[in-house]
């Protein structure tokens, strides 16, 4: 197997598979080998499912041979460990579910399995998707492939690190307040969180139901387009999924950006944004001007309310969503409980980590009698205001651009005792979850030798346009082609 494999696009891999240049079993084994050699230092995977992956790969090869394959058949991927996988441990990064073997497949998993995409394994994550650094995992912190002393971002840090280090060509993730875009930005890869309702949440362990949305990590917008299309669509099992057709995202990737209107929210470039990061974003905007785009300064005046509103709504929903982890039917149960209350208290007390407990308590408080109006209802009002801010801006522009995160990847441990400063790192990503809008992170350069992502925000169900906008940039630049040297294979190298 040719090491150049890691530099190939999904389209190229697909051609290789279909033309018989290599088999899915070979391709899958190639990635399993990379995981075996590199993951002990990255800690991107909680579970590696080699046997299953190879079995699916074999099926994929048979489908390819019999001509019943689709474009992605045989291409391996990794799933964030928040998606339920039938017969495979699904932990959500928590001690609570360390012993939990899911009895069913999430819709996303089922869809990709049905086209025989081998699952390499389940990736590490902040416990129950609560975190921005992947330090909140029961399975330990994930390392950023660009600098092993730094975080990969979170909560989908395992998926991001796996794709960035080429341990998987693509991976799934989920994004509740930035959990795809921020790690994509911090690890220099492409990530997209689609519109709320675009991808089924069935089988995706809930953190904050009204904000959670599954999405994609890939090495390019073109690769993202293929996987997103395969994952998307209405699901009768998810009442919040939306029944509108999934476009063929790949066909519009090459549309011209001549006359594209890009909005730059002034609030995203104010105090708090690292100046080096700002320079990278400004350069990217310059590149778009060259591609024919028109730049318009816009305002999202309620941006500063997004974090406070989010940290009421998300914990409120989480406090209820996580009630099912009670030690009764599955998951962790404490030893020798003396009575019911003891069982609840010690099972939950022992098995949930600090950040999860913090959010359960915050959310419980926000929903309590006497506080509901002041916190939860007010936060919902802010949510509407934020949504209206975006709708006003989208009357004038096609997409909004800005930074994904105020800084590049920070050091492991640097913020772990300061939850507020950690929460503030989500300032540019959280608002669009509240509005249900799609967002992307596209590699746009480096600041202090660490990757910086450009955020592209679209109106609801305009993923096709966003992918087009990202792809055109990636045609003109090669930031997305950078790989940490340790995991890179230079051209010509075998």
């Amino acid at each position, binding site marked *: 197997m040719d090491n150049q494999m890691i530099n190939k696009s999904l389209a190229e891999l697909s051609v290789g598979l279909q033309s018989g240049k290599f088999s899915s079993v070979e391709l899958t084994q190639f990635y399993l080998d990379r995981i075996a050699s590199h993951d002990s230092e990255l800690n991107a995977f909680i579970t590696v499912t080699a046997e299953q992956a190879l079995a699916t790969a074999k099926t994929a090869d048979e489908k390819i041979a019999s001509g019943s394959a689709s474009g992605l058949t045989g291409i391996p991927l990794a799933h964030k460990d928040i998606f339920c996988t039938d017969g495979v441990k699904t932990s959500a990064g928590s001690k609570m579910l360390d012993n939990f073997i899911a009895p069913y497949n999430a819709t996303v998993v089922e869809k990709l399995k049905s086209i025989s995409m081998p699952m390499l394994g389940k990736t590490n994550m902040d416990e129950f998707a609560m975190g921005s650094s992947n330090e909140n995992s029961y399975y330990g912190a994930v390392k950023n492939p660009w600098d092993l002393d730094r975080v990969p971002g979170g909560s989908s840090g395992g998926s991001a690190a796996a794709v960035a280090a080429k341990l998987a060509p693509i991976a799934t993730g989920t994004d509740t307040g930035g959990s795809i875009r921020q790690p994509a930005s911090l690890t220099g890869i492409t990530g997209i969180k689609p519109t709320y309702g675009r991808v089924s*949440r069935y089988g995706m362990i809930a953190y904050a139901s009204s904000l959670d949305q599954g999405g994609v990590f890939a090495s390019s917008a073109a690769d993202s387009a293929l996987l997103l299309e395969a994952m998307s669509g209405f699901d009768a*099992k998810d009442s*919040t999924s939306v029944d509108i057709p999934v476009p063929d995202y790949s066909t519009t990737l090459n549309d011209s950006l001549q006359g594209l209107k890009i909005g730059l929210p002034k609030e995203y470039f104010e105090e708090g944004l690292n100046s080096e990061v700002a320079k990278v974003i400004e350069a990217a905007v310059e590149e778009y001007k060259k591609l024919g785009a028109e730049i318009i300064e816009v305002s999202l005046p309620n941006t500063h309310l997004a974090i406070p509103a989010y940290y009421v709504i998300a914990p409120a929903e989480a406090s209820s969503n996580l009630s099912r982890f009670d030690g009764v039917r*599955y998951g962790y149960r404490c030893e020798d409980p003396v009575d019911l209350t003891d069982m609840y208290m010690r099972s939950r007390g022992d098995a949930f980590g600090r950040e999860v407990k913090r959010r359960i308590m915050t959310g419980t408080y926000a929903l309590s009698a006497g506080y509901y109006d002041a916190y*939860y209802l007010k936060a919902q009002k802010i949510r509407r205001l934020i949504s209206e801010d975006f709708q006003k801006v989208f009357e004038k522009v096609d997409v909004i651009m800005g930074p994904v995160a105020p800084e590049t990847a920070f050091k492991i441990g640097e913020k772990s005792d300061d939850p507020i400063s950690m929460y503030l790192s989500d300032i540019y990503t959280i608002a669009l979850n509240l509005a249900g809008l799609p967002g992307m992170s596209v590699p746009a350069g480096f600041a202090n030798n660490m990757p910086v992502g450009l955020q592209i925000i679209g109106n609801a169900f305009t993923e096709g346009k966003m992918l087009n906008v990202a792809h055109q940039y990636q045609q003109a630049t090669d930031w997305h082609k950078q790989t940490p040297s340790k995991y890179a294979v230079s051209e010509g190298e075998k």
Partner: protein
Amino acid sequence: MEWETVIGLEIHAQLSTKSKLFSGSSIEYGQEPNTQANVVDLAMPGVLPVLNAEAVRMAAMFGLAIGAPIGRGNVFARKNYFYPDLPQGYQISQFDKPIVELGHIDITLEDGETKRVGVTRAHLEQDAGKSLHEDFAGMTGIDLNRSGTPLLEIVSEPDMRSAKEAVAYMKKIHELVQYLGINDGNLQEGSFRCDANVSVRPKGQEEFGTRAELKNINSFKFVERAINIEVERQIDLIEDGGSVVQETRLYDPDKNETRSMRSKEEANDYRYFPDPDLLPIEITDEFLEEVRKTLPELPGVKFKRFVEEYDLSEYDAGVLTANIATADYFESVAKSADAKLAANWITGELSSHLNKEDLSINDSPVNAAMLTGLIKRIEDKTISGKIAKQVFEAMWNAEGGTDESAADKVIDAKGLKQITDSGAIESIIDEIIANNPAQVEQFQSGKDKVFGFFVGQVMKASQGKANPAQVNQMLKDKLST
């Protein structure tokens, strides 16, 4: 001091859907534990609820039947609390935006007066599973078959002023949900359950007293007893200088007493909030129109129609419309036989047989066709009313088959056909007169009462088969000459 009782009821009616409120599992009663619980009912990580449209339709039917507005954007909310038989850690219910808003229902009081009782609201919610404390030696078993079963919680205004009124209301709702076909009315299996909020206040006082909520009162009899005993307790307490505390009390039917379960202070803060997994239910005019078309004739309307169309007494119409099965049985008989006779037979002979054997009318050995056949023979004078009772008895005991010809078969087999041949009757009369000269003399000397004796003798001699009207006429003619 004179006290006034104030009662409001919360009724939980299990909807007669095929599957659960938010999952496809069956809700059939009495199955092996945990055989009707899928990943959604078990609240596995990642699962999501999907609303059962049939439950919404049934709730809307109820709303229309009590003249209530249907919440156009009604919302499911989570009621959060921990209990082992509540797998999600919250119950999906409705809070500030229920599907059925303020409606009303009319009840008939003992004095025949009609009283209108407000129905504050009715909302959809999931039932919990069951905790089984026996058979597990110090542990608790959990059966999730019932978990997620659709319930309609029907909350009344505090409009009832006595236990009897409360029972009348409960019966009325019980009757209505069965009329609508949305509940099977089974109190034993718990598909129709009732809690009562009870308070007392000095007569004339406007302000309500502090209420206690009574639980575990799942029969009409217990509702009446529990309320009465609770009212007594509250009055005694206040008159002894104490005061009622707001609490939940459990009724113990064996001891006929209520006892404290938990106080208001111990009550949970349920932290209701809209369930983010479910969108608000939008009710359209078109949907309501469709539901309206499926509404059966409601008890009150049916009652009026029975009085007018069949010329029945209000009493008979009331008995016949008390449940839909009886009303249907009656109409089935009355469509081809005399309505008044049908009413009499159903409220009389049939009811007493059913009561004696504790059967529902649906399980009656004498079905509507059989009764129709019997009444037709009374109408055409083939048999008298008295003989008809014998025929009924025989049919009840499975003689004559199960269709309309059953009565004829019994009449033939037993030779019960009425004698209308005047020659035959005349010869019996002649014989009786000849054998009883003393009585003839008495009659002729003016003792009219003796006439009854002759009728009895003739009927006896004819084994009850002589046509009574003919016997009367002919006896009169013969004795007067």
